[in-house]
């Protein structure tokens, strides 16, 4: 089953820079895809278009039957509620506890309290942070904070999880732990698209790898290893 189909995608910024062009891609449900490429190659732009933070200048991005490229600003929240996003800098609210940070994503949906509690604790359990629910983000390590962010991203059972360099701020060992968590989530059926720099980790995971070079899809490796030199 196809979850995402990108056709003829182009993104030109107002400054005149073309970040992405001639881009086509199909993603199956349950895929785990790495998007790699040098800094400035356009991989972040691609991810940002997938959650409609950027609007493509041409082409279409169809996610679950909806063309995200045509989505109006006011309706973007409908898309965001169906997917989870994880960032390099975690983007947790420092004044909310771990539990509140996770529950936040459900509260805006107007779910009943019991359901919020159950789902949030499940998500925290999945990332192994059930016992830190009452802590504040600054009391946690970087890896733990990222796991909170992942819990928040998956708490609403999204079909798709987007990760923009989630391990960019973490040491190799912690990065590997995060990958284990993501792998676990992927096994439960969530499609994951992850932009990263970490060549070693990508090779170790043996997943589908997409190489973007200067805004173009250069290579699509079905399984794992890639040999291209990237900066």
């Amino acid at each position: 089953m196809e979850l995402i189909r990108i056709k003829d995608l182009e993104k030109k910024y107002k400054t005149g820079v073309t970040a992405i062009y001639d881009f086509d891609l199909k993603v199956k449900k349950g895929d785990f895809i790495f998007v790699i490429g040098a800094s400035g190659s356009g991989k972040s732009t691609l991810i940002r278009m997938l959650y409609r933070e950027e609007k493509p200048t041409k082409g279409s991005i169809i996610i679950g039957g909806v063309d995200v490229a045509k989505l109006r600003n006011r309706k973007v929240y409908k898309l965001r509620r169906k997917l989870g996003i994880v960032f390099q800098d975690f983007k947790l609210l420092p004044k909310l506890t771990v539990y509140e940070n996770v529950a936040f994503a459900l509260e805006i949906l107007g779910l009943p309290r019991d359901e919020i509690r159950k789902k949030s604790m499940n998500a925290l359990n999945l990332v192994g942070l059930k016992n830190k629910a009452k802590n504040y983000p600054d009391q946690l390590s970087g890896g733990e904070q990222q796991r909170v962010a992942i819990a928040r991203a998956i708490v609403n059972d999204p079909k798709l999880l987007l990760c923009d360099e989630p391990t960019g701020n973490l040491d190799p060992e912690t990065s590997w732990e995060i990958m284990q968590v993501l792998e676990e989530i992927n096994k439960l059926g969530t499609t994951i698209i992850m932009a990263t720099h970490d060549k070693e980790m990508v090779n170790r995971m043996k997943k589908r790898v997409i190489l973007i070079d200067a805004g173009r899809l250069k290579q699509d490796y079905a399984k794992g290893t890639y040999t291209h030199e990237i900066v």
Partner: protein
Amino acid sequence: MKLFRLLGRSIRDAFKSVFRNFSLSLASISSVTITLLIVAISMVLSYNIENISTLIKKDFSIVVFVENSATNDEVKTIEKKIKNMDNIDSCVYENKEQVAEAWKKSSDTFKVIIESWDKNENPLADTFSIKVKNIENIKETAEQIKKIEKVSLVRYGEGIIEQLLSVLEVIEKFLIGMVIALILVTIFLVSNTIKITIFSRRKEIEIMRLVGASNSNIRMPFVIEGLFLGFLGSVVPILATIYGYSALYNFVHLDNISPFLQLAAPTPFIYIISLILLLIGTIVGMFGSAGSVRKYLKI
């Protein structure tokens, strides 16, 4: 049901955020408090000046002298004609004996002089004392009365009254202008303070957007917070108005100096001002934060 849950959560988040961002909240509250205090003072001031000027205006009267040759019937006709005019509030007739009595009472000097007259020698005239409804038209009314037969003289403080009226008018206009200007300053100051508070929380708004909060999801807690801050900020000015003005009214008696210098009665005046302050505080708070959040929403 869902709507109530969302509303409830917005209210809870608004309260939480007031306490978690305490120093920012305090900044907003105190800027509301200070400006509303100034607004309250200027409203009290302008209302009292208005009150004094009404007292002064009320005191003005037209005095009409009737010719000595007028018969009783003619006097009655004059009275009737005067009372039929539009601008007449009250019209009191005194014959010359009554006028003489009144003068005797008013000063010892007059008493001695008047008592030296013969009974039939009274040089005073029968008079009407007239209060008008609208002081601005006193001149026209006086002219009209002058045209009545057997009326010899009409006096209404010509010259002085026009000057006084124009001075009072200027003062009133100035004070109303000041109150409006102060309200505008309040709106500006408060919404600016809120803007700064929200600027420091733009990251929060960004994250809300990323996890799928709709624009109204984001706006609601901020609007409620603005309302709450505005409410808290108006508490001190309201208490100051109610208790401060009542105390002022009880302890200061300017009417010893002049009968016109009277403070306006505190009720219902202080409650009206309190209501106005409350409305300004909450509405400015609400719209200030709604407007500031808007900048960080993608619409």
